């Protein structure tokens, strides 16, 4: 167990340090500031990833028999359809208007919409089942 915790912490620290250094290398004028900000922002998600990989209890074989698995799959499928519609409408709007959008902002909006959509759909499915 100590080895698994060590691997989790090592993944978080080394991964965050690596991402920070990589981000800093793209911004040499403010290398340290960029590296610290990116490392600080990624150390927690990487710690969570390490927990999932090294410490999380194994999923039981019957996990797919649970209704929650069914809800999650249904919510993800519905969100994918919503995203395709949103992307199609957005692409048409951008093509017609010729507006140039910031890529980082577009990706952030899409990620937020996708995650919110899945969460909302899962919540509604759970409510319907009660």
């Amino acid at each position, binding site marked *: 167990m100590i080895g698994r915790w060590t691997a989790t912490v090592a993944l978080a620290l080394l991964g965050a340090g690596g991402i920070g250094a990589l981000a800093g290398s793209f911004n040499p004028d403010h290398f340290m500031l960029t590296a610290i900000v990116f490392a600080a922002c990624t150390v927690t998600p990487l710690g969570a990833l390490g927990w999932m990989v090294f410490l999380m209890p194994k999923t*039981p*074989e*019957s996990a*797919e*028999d*649970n*209704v*929650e698995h*069914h809800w999650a799959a249904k919510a993800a499928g519905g969100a994918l359809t919503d995203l395709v519609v949103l992307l199609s409408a957005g692409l048409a709007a951008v093509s017609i208007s010729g507006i140039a959008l910031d890529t980082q902002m577009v990706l952030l909006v899409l990620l937020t919409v996708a995650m919110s959509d899945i969460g909302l759909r899962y919540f509604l499915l759970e409510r*319907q*089942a009660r």
Partner: protein
Amino acid sequence: MRNDIAGRRAERGWSQAHLAEELAVSRQTIISIEKGRFDPSLPLAFRLAALFETTIEDLFDPSA
């Protein structure tokens, strides 16, 4: 799909939590199956039938 799992469970004096534990699924799964709002997978239907010592056809009514 309509079924009489709730009745059979009650006959044996089992709680939903106990049945869920026997089948290695969540209690919400049992609730949803009993209400007919979730059709179990074939392996789970077989496990249910085996647990209640009956057949899938007796446990579930596909016409409902």
